[in-house]
């Protein structure tokens, strides 16, 4: 089985989907001849032609809006926005059109599109290239928001997102693109959407994370294990809708819940997880739900991004506080 990076997993899933379904098209800035600025679409245009892998004019609203039109007309567009910081121009189309076309026509038209974009800090990129906007998308009824944490998960979740009959925002943590390799079997098997994955079993506390933070949570769990504390780590994977069945089952077992998110704290998804676990898991909880998040500040430029990002040390420290709570 080949060992691939996350971005290679994305590329493989795109190629597979395009091979299997002629209605799948890729569009975005630099996705064609250049293969995308991160090379997520490398080789696709040579293989599937300019019609199905289209370099668009430089306009994010257009890219998202065209995807809506393509999807309503029967294609399965996979649009790329070059960085999440530029996706805000596309939010109008996602919010006012993609997410509600099925409902507002009562099922007459639908919008099976995927909008992929790299997200998150940690690659020393310029301004506007390091945002974590998942909560902004997750607030939109009718959308799905999915974020992978590993090459195999990227492959399987992207196939699922493309096959899904509704619009999916697919957030790819850019600092995981080439961070590690994993065996990815090109079997065309999609992973389930709307399902969280227990990536490490434990008994003493539940750590909920998604995207790149899953790795900081796992690193913290390693450190805690050395102290005799066994953390269960959950990768939400689909952050809208959230699989609370899995989260609450875990909290019932462990009695403690820590939510880890790279995004700013206020009104973030960690707040939502915390609220639901508090509402529905209260009688299981031995301590208040705690959040470890990015600060409520502008995502800083490269020199300070390591100070902004939550890391394993902050996660482990919060876990120790939870364990000590009485």
């Amino acid at each position, binding site marked *: 089985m080949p060992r691939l990076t996350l971005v290679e997993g994305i590329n493989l899933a795109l190629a597979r989907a395009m091979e299997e379904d002629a209605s799948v098209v890729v569009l975005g800035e630099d996705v064609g001849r250049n293969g995308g600025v991160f090379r997520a679409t490398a080789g696709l245009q040579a293989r599937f032609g300019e019609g199905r892998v289209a370099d668009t004019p430089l306009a994010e609203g257009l890219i998202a809006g065209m995807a809506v*039109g393509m999807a309503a007309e029967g294609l399965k567009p996979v649009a790329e926005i070059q960085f999440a910081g530029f996706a805000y121009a596309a939010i109008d189309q996602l919010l006012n059109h993609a997410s509600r076309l*099925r409902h507002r026509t009562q099922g007459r038209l639908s919008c099976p599109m995927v909008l992929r974009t790299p997200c998150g800090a940690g690659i020393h990129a310029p301004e506007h290239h390091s945002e974590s906007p998942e909560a902004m998308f997750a607030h939109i009824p009718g959308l799905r928001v999915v974020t992978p944490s590993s090459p195999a998960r990227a492959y399987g979740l992207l196939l699922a997102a493309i096959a899904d009959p509704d619009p999916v925002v697919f957030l790819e943590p850019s600092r995981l693109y080439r961070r590690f390799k994993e065996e990815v079997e090109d079997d065309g098997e999609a992973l389930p959407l709307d399902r969280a994955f227990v990536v490490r079993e434990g008994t003493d506390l539940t750590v909920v994370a998604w995207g790149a933070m899953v790795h900081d949570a796992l690193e913290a769990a390693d450190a805690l294990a050395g102290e005799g504390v066994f953390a269960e780590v959950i990768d939400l994977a689909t952050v809208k809708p959230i699989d609370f*069945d899995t989260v609450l089952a875990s909290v019932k077992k462990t009695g403690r819940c820590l939510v880890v998110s790279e995004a700013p704290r206020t009104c973030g998804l960690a707040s939502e997880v915390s609220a639901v676990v508090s509402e529905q898991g209260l009688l299981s909880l031995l301590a208040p739900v705690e959040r470890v998040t990015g600060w409520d500040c502008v995502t800083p430029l490269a020199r300070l991004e390591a100070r902004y990002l939550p890391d394993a040390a902050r996660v482990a420290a919060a876990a120790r506080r939870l364990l000590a709570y009485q």
Partner: protein
Amino acid sequence: MSIAARFEVRFTAFLDAQGQPLGPLPAFAADPATLVPDYRAMVLMRALDAKAVAMQRTGQIGTYASTLGKEAIDAGIAHALAPEDVVLPSYRESGILMLRGVSPHRVFLYWGGDERGSVFPESPRDFPFNVPIASQLPHAAGVAYAMTLRGERRAALAICGDGATSKGDFYEALNAAGVWRLPMVVLVVNNQYAISVPRRLQSAAQTLAQKAIAAGVDCEQVDGNDVIAVRDAATRSLERARSGGGPMLIEALTYRLCDHTTADDATRYRSAEELAGQWRAEPILRLRNFLASRGIWTKEKEENLHREVAERVRETVRKYLETTPPQPEQMFRHLYARLPRAYAWQLAALKESEEERDAAPHPG
């Protein structure tokens, strides 16, 4: 110094305000009888529109965007469309949708506050009303792209107003259509006002049509109160688009004889004199004068038409009022292809609260 580029914008009108030909008419108008269906459609459109406004005034539908004054545009465009084309309307295109076969009671349902008003079984590929401004133009580019990719002989027609031409979406979509030579026609209904903001404050461009030129897209301007001119331009443009000739922008000059919507009061920003002057150029009278002058429209036909139209309006209102009210569950229906498990409890909670509401003793 040399000239890097030159352009000109053609304006076409065939009838003057009194309905007299300004010159030779296009081939289809050689037999004026072919314009009778357009005339009938325009009269029906105006009657349905008047009814919708009246029903808003009496609280039977919600805020409504009147179509008064743009009847020639809807009739001319509808005539040029093929069933397999896709229309992407703004919110003022009730007429075109009706002429595409959509039952007019759906329009009443939509403005009456029911999502089922956007179910068009009679024209299933057409888009619903687009309330945000110009955001349907990128959709049209996507629709046209899909048509091209599949090698189909179809076209996408997006319709927007003069205000929409100030938006980025307008230019972005035209630009894309130009790059890929998409089978897309954009019709700008220039009715001189974006709510209260007049055309002169919307753009310093001499014509709105010429905005297409910057995107490498051909354009023309027509008299939007002249159904012959609209039909002529729309037919040529759509046929050209379907056969691979590329996109086109048509600016149709007209005047909004009504308020922006029933929630607006246009007397705040324009004079009675201005409005009265524009009534003298309105499209229905013009076409009737033309048809009468050719001896194919009579007082008797007019009276019969008004009787037919009144019946059609009654039938529309009846169908609208007879539609069962939307049930609260409709909020969740078709939200997703399958409602995610995570939200199913909300639907259950909604139903439960509805049952409690029904079971509660009636106040008073």
